[in-house]
């Protein structure tokens, strides 16, 4: 057993050496910091696949600035400090012109802030918190933030004919952004948010919060929740009879669907980011051919597009000079770029203006996308 463990350690170290082998001078190298280990490792794996496919695609089409593109992937471990350390290494040792990263907003924001401090271009491939907008001048997102996703959700809820809703969201940067932005869009579309209840994550029961939203007697309940917490909220809503005759709508439904037993989510509908957008079929085919399975998460496609976007910006800049690259990213954001997740255009803050979302409904255990 011990021998195997030692062997595995050596193998891992060796694999690490191979992965970070000195970059050949003739390559153009950019950096990526993603969670290859830790709680979000599955998403990180999907992101690294997206990156790998993008590199293959770009190099098959002539590479970047006449050279081969290479992406140095660093593990964030799902921790802010590790993510920043990885970015420091990419900037000061590898001298990459662009850094892509991370997955969760709590890591992307400090990572981005460090890069902005250094005047480095940063591309956010996954985080949707509204706070991402405030990272700084040289930070860009190829994924739509809360303002875009909540507008889609608000429209979807209105289209179902529910005019008065109660909102339940976790009390952190993500939940606050979702609650505020949803209220803004829903009110603008003629709906009424009767009450908003923010809950602390990690509680052993959410009965109190559920009774609080119930007091507002809404047409429907709109909520967002992480995995097992979402499951508990749905179970307690079921027990309290809050699901009787009242619809429930989940913002980013894939976060909590898998953890929730079918009994407690009958009739649940919701939305989430789309796996791919218009023109993304080629990517899907290639992905399934290469890895022999379907997408692990929704975020591989966005990581893929982050690389495409970075490569296109470098080509447009004609060099790896920081100022030229930043200018090229701004221009490219205005013109738009076709990626696996649809057309990517950036607003004045460098954030994606629109992106694909999917409407989901629960059938038994599973989610089914519908129009």
């Amino acid at each position, binding site marked *: 057993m011990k021998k195997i463990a030692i062997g595995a350690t050596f193998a891992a170290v060796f694999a690490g050496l191979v992965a970070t082998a000195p970059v050949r001078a003739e390559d153009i190298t950019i950096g990526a910091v993603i969670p290859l280990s830790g*709680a979000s490792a599955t998403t990180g794996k999907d992101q690294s696949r997206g990156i790998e496919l993008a590199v293959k695609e770009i190099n098959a089409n002539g590479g970047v600035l006449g050279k081969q593109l290479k992406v140095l992937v660093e593990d964030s471990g799902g921790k802010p400090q590790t993510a920043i350390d990885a970015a420091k290494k990419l900037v000061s040792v590898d001298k990459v012109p662009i850094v892509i990263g991370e997955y969760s907003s709590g890591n992307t924001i400090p990572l981005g802030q460090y890069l902005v401090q250094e005047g480095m271009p940063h591309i956010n491939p996954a985080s949707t918190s509204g706070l991402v907008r405030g990272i700084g001048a040289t930070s860009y997102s190829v994924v739509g933030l809360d303002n875009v996703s909540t507008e889609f959700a608000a429209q979807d809820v209105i289209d179902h004919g529910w005019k008065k809703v109660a909102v339940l969201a976790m*009390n952190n940067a993500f939940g606050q952004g979702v609650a505020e932005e949803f209220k803004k869009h829903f009110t603008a579309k003629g709906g009424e948010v*009767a*009450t908003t*209840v*923010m*809950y*602390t994550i*990690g*509680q*052993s*029961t*959410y*009965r*109190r*919060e*559920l*009774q*609080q939203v*119930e*007091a*507002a*007697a809404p047409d429907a309940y709109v909520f967002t929740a992480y*995995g*097992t*917490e979402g*499951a*508990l909220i749905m*179970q*307690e809503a*079921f*027990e*309290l*009879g809050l699901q*009787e005759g009242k619809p429930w709508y989940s913002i980013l439904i894939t976060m909590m669907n898998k953890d929730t037993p079918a*009994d*407690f989510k009958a009739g649940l509908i919701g939305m989430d980011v789309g796996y791919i957008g218009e023109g993304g079929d080629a990517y899907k085919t290639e992905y399934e051919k290469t890895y022999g399975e379907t997408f692990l998460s929704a975020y591989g496609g966005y990581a893929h597009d982050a690389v495409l976007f970075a490569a296109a910006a470098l080509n447009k800049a004609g060099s790896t000079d920081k100022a030229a690259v930043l200018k090229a990213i701004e221009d490219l954001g205005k013109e738009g770029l076709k990626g696996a997740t649809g057309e990517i255009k950036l607003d004045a803050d460098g954030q994606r203006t629109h992106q694909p979302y999917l409407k989901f409904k629960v059938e038994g255990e599973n989610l089914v996308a519908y129009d």
Partner: protein
Amino acid sequence: MPDRDRGGHFYSGLQHRPIAGCTTPSLSHNAGSSAAASAGIAQTEKSMFQFLFDVLIRSVDLALIAVALSAVYSLIKFPNVALVQYAVVGAFVAMSLHAAGLPLLVAGFASALFVGLLAVVFNILIFERLLKSDSAIALIGSLALSMILSAVFLLAYGPTAYRFKLQVSPAMRILGARITDHQVTTLVLTTVALGLFALILFRTSLGREMRATATNGVLAAATGIDTRRVTNIVVFLSGMLAALGGITLAMRGSVSIDLGTNMMLPVFAAAILGGLGNALGAVVGAIVIAAAETVITNTNIGPFIGEDFYFLPASYAPVASFAILVVFLLFRPRGLFTSEVNRV
């Protein structure tokens, strides 16, 4: 659908009465509310039962662990912080046994026995030695043990929350309050456990020995009572009670490694309120803390700030425990009832 908005505004009902045109004296001049204006007297009664029931259930959450804490304190004269973690151990062990196929009752009982033994082992290995120096050192030792246990849970179970795989059905409605099966089970289990504990304490020779040891350990030893044995029996029982507390909590929600830390403050407040060392006084302490918490989370303060509905976040509930704790430590450090305890 007036039947719907009965959830939490027992107090809000009072605010809305002037609007609803009921006969009760007006308590508020604020007329900013519309949606809940339909709250009539019948409605308020229903809300009141829901409120009382919420208080009852929250008391049950706290009572078992608070009683355990207080009982042990009466003998070893320091509050064992690690008791809240014993509750988490109880919940996790019961869940693992239940997941392995044991019936819930058997899994729960086995887990409570296990935690009782674990408490005795920790008491002999750690606390008996620390107590030879000083009770303050034992208190810090128990805090350290609590942190170590928390770290062990993190390694063994990770940060996610776990639930029992139990049949869940919609709540029954009794007098307008919603009551679930598992809440009834919890109430019964808690009542039986506390009743048995009270019986042991007041109706058996063992209980007499416990009370004698608690009142004056030296004198008790002089009369031939094996005080060490008595202490370890109480520690064992306290471990079982704490485990049962954790298991009943887990039956009605989920358990993550934070549970112990989250329970620490309200449990301590309840135990101190009841008078540390006065085991059954902790039950009254639990009811007071539960009522204060429920007032904070169930009161619609919307009319005061010009909105229809605004509730304080449920995470503000511990404020009630803190405030009550500080007030009692300042003015009645011996708790609601007098007891032999001189300081906490």
